[in-house]
């Protein structure tokens, strides 16, 4: 708010005063009154008027400056009515009340959505919990009746399970803090567990695995890590098309971090796609060519890794293979921010 703007706002008021003075001054001159008397009247009239305008201007200027200052520094702008000083003027108070009410209403509105989201999330989690029972039964039935047919069904059931797991982690991914437990996790055990889960795929595609150089322990949440790793290893298996497939997993310990790398000799990702693989819903050339890609897996991995405070990087060469690394920072920063 500049002085010019302020005066412009009061232009009518000043104009009326001026016109009134000119009329009265004119009359006074017409009735031949002393010029000094006219000037005196002018002073008595305009001195308090101008002082009043000036004082008001400075008062308002400090108030609005403070307000915009608070606004600029606020992280969550909608909290403004809670932190601002209550204005003294009548107009100010009316606006202040209106602002508060609008804000309150907005809060209720948002809360409605939040409740709805939580409800939905809870429903999804219960649903997942329930669907696991029939899946477990199916698995046992298959196990007890092993034929070529049931073996194929088993493969499909495994896919169903993976998709269900993805849903579970997707619904949890916005609210990690509720569902994690930081423990010491042995990387070897973690990697082995995930490979065992996928053993059938490795074996049937004839992919060999090398995990000689995996070692070390990190502090993190085992379940979330397992999910991330399972997605990454699943991808490695999925995109190995040639014979002599090979997945090499190794860790490197640096001064500040441990890097776990999963390397495959699959079809690779083209240069123009590689920067976008972590985007939600991005399937790229490989997704179009080979299908069965939802564009959710890597997006979720990245999101979960971020929340766990882990780095996730990917490099690839078309036709030669892909390398994905999970970076575990060492020390105190390896906890959820």
């Amino acid at each position, binding site marked *: 708010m500049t002085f010019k703007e302020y005066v412009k706002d009061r232009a009518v008021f000043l104009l009326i005063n001026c016109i009134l003075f000119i009329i009265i001054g004119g009359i006074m001159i017409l009735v031949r009154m002393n010029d000094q008397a006219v000037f005196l009247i002018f002073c008595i009239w305009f001195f308090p008027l101008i002082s009043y305008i000036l004082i008001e201007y400075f008062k308002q200027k400090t108030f609005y400056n403070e307000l915009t200052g608070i606004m600029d520094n606020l992280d969550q702008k909608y909290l403004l009515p809670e932190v601002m000083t209550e204005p003294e003027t009548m107009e100010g108070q009316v606006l202040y009340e209106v602002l508060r009410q609008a804000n309150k209403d907005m809060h209720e509105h948002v809360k409605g959505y939040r409740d709805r989201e939580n409800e939905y999330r809870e429903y999804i989690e219960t649903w997942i919990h329930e669907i696991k029972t029939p899946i477990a039964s199916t*698995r046992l039935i298959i196990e007890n009746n092993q034929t070529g047919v049931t073996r194929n069904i088993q493969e499909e059931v495994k896919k169903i399970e993976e998709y269900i797991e993805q849903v579970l982690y997707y619904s949890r991914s916005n609210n990690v803090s509720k569902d994690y437990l930081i423990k010491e996790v042995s990387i070897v055990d973690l990697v082995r567990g995930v490979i065992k889960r996928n053993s059938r795929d490795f074996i049937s595609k004839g992919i060999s695995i090398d995990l000689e150089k995996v070692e070390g322990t990190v502090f993190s949440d085992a379940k979330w890590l397992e999910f991330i790793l399972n997605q990454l290893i699943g991808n490695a298996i999925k995109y190995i098309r040639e014979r002599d497939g090979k997945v090499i997993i190794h860790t490197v310990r640096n001064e500040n971090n441990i890097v776990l790398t999963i390397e495959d000799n699959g079809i690779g990702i083209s240069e123009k796609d590689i920067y976008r693989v972590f985007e939600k819903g991005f399937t790229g050339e490989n997704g179009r060519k080979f299908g069965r890609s939802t564009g959710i897996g890597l997006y979720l991995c990245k999101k979960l890794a971020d929340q766990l405070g882990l780095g996730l990087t990917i490099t690839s060469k078309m036709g030669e293979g892909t390398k994905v690394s999970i970076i575990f920072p060492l020390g105190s920063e390896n906890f959820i921010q």
Partner: protein
Amino acid sequence: MSKIVIIEDTETIREELKTFLITYGFDAIAPVNFENIIQETLNEAPDLILLDINLPIFDGYYICREIRKQSDVPIIVVTSRDNEMDELMSMNLGADDFITKPYNTQILLARIETILRRVQGSSMRDTVVYNDLKLNLSNGSVTYKGEKAELTKNEIKILSCLYKNKGKIVSREDLMDFMWNADVFVDDNNLSVNVTRLRKKLEALGMEKNIETRRGLGYILP
């Protein structure tokens, strides 16, 4: 034969799990009535209990606690609720292990065997006998009519897998899967090499009839 009590309210899982465990040589009992489940279980004097958490009448935690008051029988909690709190809770109440549904049946078996071995002492379940061949799982040696030979870890795994399925053809894929689940990530070539070596070792002991290859199908210990 180890006796396992399955406490599970979903009928399909209960029956299938029972069939599955019986196939693998356990004496499996699955009570259907949950009103007096604790006493009923204890009366069976089982070697191990598989316990679900979500049950009618009493939940699994309660049953776990009550059984612990009276018995030290190993308990494996099997549940579809996979969060860390449930796991912690189960462990605090005295469960020996925790597996989430849907589980890999081989892993379930492995866990059951590990716990039974720990509880019953190593001697009981670690030696298996096939014809005149004695296989000692804990020190990795085989004895045939007084002759002794040392086996590598891979060879032990192959032999024990074929032994468990004796009289049945085990496909190469199943054999590999078994080994992978025991942390031995062999590839196809390695497997052939290992089987050949194992066969030579057995022959050197004087055991003429040992592992047979069924072309295109797999291996069999007749």
